[in-house]
């Protein structure tokens, strides 16, 4: 018999669990969260300023996603190898790295494509992190391929046992690529389910194209349902809610060793990238301002203090940018380095 699809809950209807008056996290954690969000925002704004003043060719990053990306970073078990979490990120994840404890200078150097850029040595765009010591695999420009690679690291972790998991992030538009389905298929093989936290940050845009103009899935998290996996759509603009929701998801994946598909609704505060101007959007919710309102109201952190923090980091990162500007670009001859591991770089056709 034919089944008409049940009408799915529209994306906008999900209920954030902690818009209420109580703040269910301790003040210290809230302050850390807030300060890290401020750092992330200031860092991205510095990168944008660098782009606008000609110190970098292209900017892309995550301002507007801090309320989701900071809690994400707080929950990651960082370290090297399969006993630690693997991170398959896309290009909006600076706040997550800062929450994990990363220094901001690296992002600034990458923006300026200096040889000191710790992620790519001046080779790759801003926001394209890579840090082997923390299992942060290189961010790839091709959209969505990380959803195919994550199954490999998760397999190694499943086999090892323990509680380490693989985390993958990407955008809403990218879920139209086959790799998203690949991830769902491979992470839910019977008796071979994988410990993957599959995340989609839904900002309702793919560059200039509205999500609901080109995709008919109302809740992206529903894509996991036929695969028998646990799924949810959460509020990514509320750091407290995001933290608690992510915590539940992390715990499930760590202990059950099975996939969990989480869709987080987030804002895109400076447009897609520098290609679209990188100007502040006044129509999207700003998770940082909203959070500052609440912290102030609850006496966790006064507005003035929040403002001071913003100024402090803005100035600190301007200083780092000045420092990076003095650093050298990579030498042209280095293009031959690291073509192959364990071999000196050289032009194979020079003889």
């Amino acid at each position, binding site marked *: 018999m034919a089944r008409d699809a049940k009408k799915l809950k529209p994306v906008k209807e999900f209920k954030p669990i902690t818009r209420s008056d109580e703040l269910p996290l301790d003040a210290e954690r809230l302050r850390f969260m807030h300060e890290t969000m401020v750092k992330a925002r200031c860092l991205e704004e510095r990168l944008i300023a660098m782009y606008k003043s000609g110190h970098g060719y*292209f900017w892309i990053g995550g301002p507007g996603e801090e309320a989701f990306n900071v809690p994400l970073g707080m929950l990651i078990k960082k370290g090297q190898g399969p006993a630690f979490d693997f991170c398959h990120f896309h290009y909006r994840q600076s706040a997550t790295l800062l929450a994990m404890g990363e220094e901001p200078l690296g992002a600034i150097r990458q923006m300026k494509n200096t040889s000191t850029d710790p992620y790519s040595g001046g080779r790759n765009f801003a926001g394209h992190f890579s840090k082997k010591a923390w299992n942060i695999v290189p961010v790839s420009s091709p959209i969505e391929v990380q959803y195919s690679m994550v199954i490999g690291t998760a397999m190694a972790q499943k086999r090892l046992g323990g509680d380490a998991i693989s985390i993958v992030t990407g955008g809403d538009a990218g879920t139209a690529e086959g790799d998203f389905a690949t991830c769902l298929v491979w992470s839910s093989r019977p008796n071979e389910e994988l410990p993957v936290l599959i995340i989609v940050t839904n900002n309702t845009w793919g560059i200039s194209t509205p999500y609901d103009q080109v995709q008919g899935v109302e809740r992206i998290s529903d894509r996991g349902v036929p695969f028998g996996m646990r799924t949810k759509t959460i509020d990514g603009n509320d750091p407290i809610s995001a933290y608690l929701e992510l915590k539940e998801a992390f715990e499930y994946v760590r202990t059950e060793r099975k996939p969990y598909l989480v869709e987080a609704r987030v804002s895109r505060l400076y447009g897609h990238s520098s290609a679209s101007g990188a100007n502040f959007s006044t129509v999207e919710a700003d998770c940082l301002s909203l959070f500052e309102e609440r912290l102030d109201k609850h006496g966790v952190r006064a507005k003035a203090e929040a403002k001071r923090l913003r100024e402090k980091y803005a100035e600190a990162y301007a200083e780092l940018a000045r420092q990076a500007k003095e650093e050298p670009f990579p*030498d042209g001859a280095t293009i031959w380095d690291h073509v192959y591991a364990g071999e000196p770089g050289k032009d194979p056709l020079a003889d």
Partner: protein
Amino acid sequence: MANMAQAIRMALHYAEENLGVTDIFGEDVGAPLGGVFTCTQGLKTAWNSPLDERGIIGAAMGLAMAGARPVAEIQFCDYVYNTIDLLKLAGNTLWASNGQWNLPMVVMTPVGSGIRGSIYHSHSFDATMTHIPGWKTVMPSTPLDAYGLMLSACKEQNPVMFLIPKALMRVRGEELIPGEPGDDKQLSKLIDAPLGDRSKWTPQWPELADAAIPLGKAKVVREGRQLTVVSYGRTLPLAKKAADTLAGEGLDAEVIDLRTLWPYDWEAIVASVKKTGRVLFLNEDTEVTNFGEHLARRVTEKLFYHLLAPPKVLAGKFVPGIGLADTLEAASVPQQGDVEQAMRALAVMQP
């Protein structure tokens, strides 16, 4: 005069109105953006696709099968590589069905370096594409050629790959497209979308004429007696400028713009090499298994005893990517100086 993006846009407008083009689509190709390089602004049949290159090529194939005339865009050729199987299929469908199903479809995609595109917005696609049978492949180096080749592409009964050198996208032509107003500002006012709200904008198309350039015909951009350079796309103007410079040194070089890579104008190459006895094949794709090597091999096999020096291939270094820093890009793909040096070296080579 129009730049290449405007020329393509005008050609597509002409093709919508006169050549039966029914669908111009791809990521961000429709309103409001009209393509990341504005090639499709204001076109009446342009629409935004899901972020899925396989779907884009598959849809184009299906549309062509159903008698429509699609022009599909891959946003950057760097993102076409998950569709090579489909491109091969499009190229063999007529053959496999023993002549039943031809696919009149155009795929267009920006290629090459020169806009600081880093690892994933700098790829060339000519080597990979010329290895795929059943397609015709073009790559203009001027707006007028882009216009004329696009008209021919839209008249073709076979799949056509239209490669657009990114670096030349904003360079104004030296020749008027028939119908184009003489004044650049006026042209821009007519056909460029305004910044800001575009919802009420419609373009005012000039009265354009059919100026189709037959596929398979090269253009001798500069006549010369001592040395031939065969090139296309971004490196063509480098060759032309180098020839002008070297003329001052008493070296008389002929420069051929191949324009169509497949099927290419063998007669034009033969005529020139028989005259000069020295030939440089110049492109910027990586140099191992490179299309210039095909041309060099054929010239060597067929014209060996006419050659005064070995045919030379100058192409991109065989590195995994083009790095973001200027120093890296300059070391990876032929620059003005490299072209001049190669021409000089070839000119003086003696047994």
